[in-house]
Structures are given as structure tokens and as C-alpha cells.
């Protein structure tokens, strides 16, 4: 029960942090922000990894875990790369390329 209570605290504080972090977003960044946040939600890959490491010799679990890991990584890798691709375009617009970035 103690562990669960602690987890609830973590959930609460994490949510409050999330609400605070996104204050004023310029419309230009809505799409990249959405896709970046989306990539972070692929953090379930850690749970998938845990599932695999705990599976032992159980093939069904290994397959399930591997599938979960694959889908999560698709989300993470694709999400971060596509966000980067979008943001690179904004940067190339700047008057002084190669500036402090």
C-alpha cells in the first residue's frame, strides 16, 4: 500500500508539472509539440523491457513483450525524428544560420 500511495503522489506531481510546463505555446509549435509529447508517451517501452526481462523462458510473454517494445520504439524513434525534421525547417529560416543553437 505504501508503494501505491507513493505512486499516486508521483502521478499527482507529474500531472501538475505537465499542466505548468505548457503555458503559452506559439501556434507555430503546436504540431511539433504534439508530436514531441507523443514520442515521450512511448516511454512504455520501459515497461515492455521489464516484461521481457521478467518473462524468463515463457515464450508467449517474450513475444508479447517484444511486440510491445517494437510498437513503443516505433512511437519513440519515429516521434522524435519527425519532430526534429519539423524543427530543423524552422531553424533554417533564421537570418543567421549556425547561430547559437
Amino acid at each position, binding site marked *: 500500500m505504501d508503494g501505491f500511495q*507513493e*505512486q499516486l503522489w*508521483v502521478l499527482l*506531481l*507529474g*500531472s*501538475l*508539472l*505537465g*499542466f505548468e*510546463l*505548457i503555458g503559452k505555446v*506559439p*501556434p*507555430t*509549435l503546436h*504540431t511539433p*509539440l*504534439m*508530436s*514531441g*509529447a*507523443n*514520442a*515521450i*508517451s*512511448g*516511454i512504455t*517501452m*520501459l*515497461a*515492455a*523491457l521489464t*516484461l*521481457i*526481462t521478467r*518473462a524468463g523462458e515463457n515464450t*508467449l*510473454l517474450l513475444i508479447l*513483450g*517484444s511486440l*510491445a517494445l*517494437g*510498437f*513503443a*520504439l516505433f*512511437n519513440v*524513434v519515429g*516521434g*522524435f*525524428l*519527425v519532430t*526534429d525534421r*519539423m*524543427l530543423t*525547417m*524552422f531553424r*533554417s529560416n533564421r*537570418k543567421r544560420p549556425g547561430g547559437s*543553437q
Partner: protein
Amino acid sequence: MSSAELFQGGLDLLAVALLALGIKGLSKIRSARAANQLAATAMAMAVVGLLVSTQPTAVTWFWIAGGTAVGGALGMLTARLVPMTAMPETVALFNGCGGLSSLLVALGVLLAAEGDGLTPSLLVLVSIGFSIVVGAVTCTGSVVAMGKLQGWLPTPGWMLSRWRHGCNIALATVVLLAAVLTAGGSGDALWPLVISASLLGIGLTLPIGGADMPVVISLLNSYSGVAAAAAGFVVGQRLLIVAGAMVGAAGLILTQVMCTGMNRSLPAVLFGGALGSASTGSKGSGEYTNITSCSAEECALTLEAAERVVVVPGYGLAVAQAQHTLREVARLLEKHGVTVTYAIHPVAGRMPGHMNVLLAEADVPYEQLKEMDVINPEFPATDVVLVLGANDVVNPQAKTDPDSPLYGMPVLDVQEARTVFVVKRGMNAGYSGIKNDLFEHPNTSMVFGDAKQVLGNILGELKILGVGQL
């Protein structure tokens, strides 16, 4: 606590801090790219920490490598190859896969416990049920959203009737029952739960109109964060709970911002059915009667004589891949001394900020992009407005006709300008299927044709006129 576990704990803490900084940085143009990389690094660190502390065996490594290679490679390919115009669909696809992953993890943990003959504690079972429901709804909902944006999925007629509410309520009841049974430790309820929750995701998303889809994707993005947090409860990992909660909360805020931009309330989006569905019966009566059309040549002449030109880019421009030609036209006009700005509606393109990305791809300086509130007071002093592949966002009905489904949506007041050119392929209705009064406005001339072709012709005419040449 072993040193490996201490190492993992430390890395996790650092990862949380970096993720938070990453999300924060993503909301400023200057820091966005570095922030994105920071968040990616944080994720990588968390993975390293986990692998160091658990020290997988050879068999385990094999399965880890398999999932990583396939998922990572497909993700990389998709991110590289997908056209910028298809960004909303892509986000939906990634999102759906994240949801599916949470679902699979929860399933796996439950099956593992059953295999060992153990009954997980009530709290874990509740988390598992929750994770399965949210994961399944996120997954199927995102796939439907993607299908609708791609135009693969039409909305079946009965889905627009009131039947769908009954249908969804019935499904939700089954989901609730099955979730309670699963949480009570009854394995038989597991598959009904997975299936009914998946169907619920479809039932909730399918009736929503294409124009509202960005809001849905943003909301589903928030759900996938919630699903990740639920998966964190299932496996007892705090990092997942924090990161999931942050994404869930941030996603909610973003959804709210989008709703405000479209002047739609979230319940209206979710339960109101497709925008324009009410007017499906009046499609035939919405004929245009008083249309003026002109050639690219006339358009070029007017542009050449103008002092202030405002371009209103829409999704049609992006589909025609005409951003680059547009940039050329703007360049010539600017050299000629014409002030060219771009009016960006909050939901131009298919998603807020989508049009900004597409224009950035064509090297349009973002200082020239004006938001709606800034540009609207300037339309009366504007000589020429060039509407390129936009429709609903310039429909004056949104302000004048209380019966219109668009009524109340903020729009660009282009009809205030001296001359309006609307470049359009034909007289078919916009994304929402609603007639546009702007096209019949006395100041409006239609230039029919593909946006790229028309802009190419205008560019040619401007060159013949010697505009912008020394």
C-alpha cells in the same frame, strides 16, 4: 540496494528532470530543437539504466534486440519518408502504437501472473484493467483518426444518427463490467474487455468529422500519456508514471488551446457529431449562383499594381505542393515593392501549426506569418488577398449566419479587402461540406485550377510584366 539499482535510480531522476526541461523547451521556437533532443536523450538514459540494473540473459537480449530493430527501423523510415502534408496522420499512427504498447504490457503482466498461478494485488489488477481500456481506446481511436484524415474511412450514415450514443453507451457498459470483473481476478473477462474497449475507441472516433480530427488526435495523445502512466502502475515504475502524467496533462492543455482556436467546445467535438453533418440534406440547395471567375493573367496584373498583399494558405496549397512556387511569386512581388504577408488561421492545414511547418519547408521567413488576431484588423487596408486552397477558414458565414454549422468559428475577414482572389480546383464544398458565401462576394474572383499550376501561370505573367526584375 545494489549499486546497479542505485545507478538506475540516479539515471531515472536525471531522466525525469531532462524530460520536464524538454517539454518546457518545446514550447519556445528558439529552444525547441535542442529540447526535443534533450527529451530523446533522457529516454535513452532511462533505457540504459533499466538494462544495467536488470542484466538480461542471452535469450532476453535476443527478444529485446528483435523488437528494437524492427520497431526502431520502421520508426526511422516512417519519420524520414512521410511527407510533411501527412503530419497529423503520422502523429496519429505513432500515437496508436504507443497505446497498443501499453495494452500489450498490461496483457503480458496479467498473463504472466496467471501462468505462475498468482493473483496480483487488487491495485495492480485495477491498474491492468485501466491500462487495457485506455490503451485499446487510444489504439483503435488513433487508427480511425488516421484513416479519416487519409480519406480511407467514410463516416457511415447511421453513425451520425442518435443510434451511435446508444451504441457507445452499451459498449462503455460492457467495458466497465469487464474491467470490474478483470480487476476482481476473473480471467474470463479479459478478452471481452480488450475487444469491447477496442470497439469503443472506434465508436467514439468514427462519427467525428474530419475538420475536428486535430482536436481528437491531440486528445488521444493525452490518452496515450495516461495509458503510459497506467502501465507504470502495472509494472511499478515511477518514471513511466511521471512521464505519462506529464504528457497526459500537457496534451489536455494543448487540446484546450486547439478547441479555443476553433471556437469549439470539447464536448461538442466529442459528442456533437461531424461538423456540417446537419447540412448534408441541403447539399443540393447550396448551389452557387453568382460567381465571377478570372484568369491568372488578370490576377497577376492586379497583384502587380497592389501595395499590400495578404496570402491565405490552406491545405489545398500543401496538397498541390505549391508552397515553393508561392514563395517565388512572393519574392518577385517583394522585389517590386509589394508588402507580402501570410495570414495563418489557427487551424490552417490539418492541425494547428501545420501550415507553419509547411511554409517553413518552403523557406518562408516565419516573421511574415501573421496570426489571425493580428491580421484581421489589417484586411480593410489590404489591396489583394490571395486565398490558396483554403475554404472554411475564410467563410463569412461563421460570423453572419447563426444557422450555419460554422457559426462562431473564428475566421479570417478576407472579404474586407479591396480584391479577393480564390484559387480553387472547382466549386466543390470545403472540408466541412459547407457552402462558402465568400465566393459570391462582389469583390471576389475565382481563379480555377490546381494551386501549383495557377501560381506557375501567375509567376510567368509577372515575369512577362517585368515585375521584380532589374
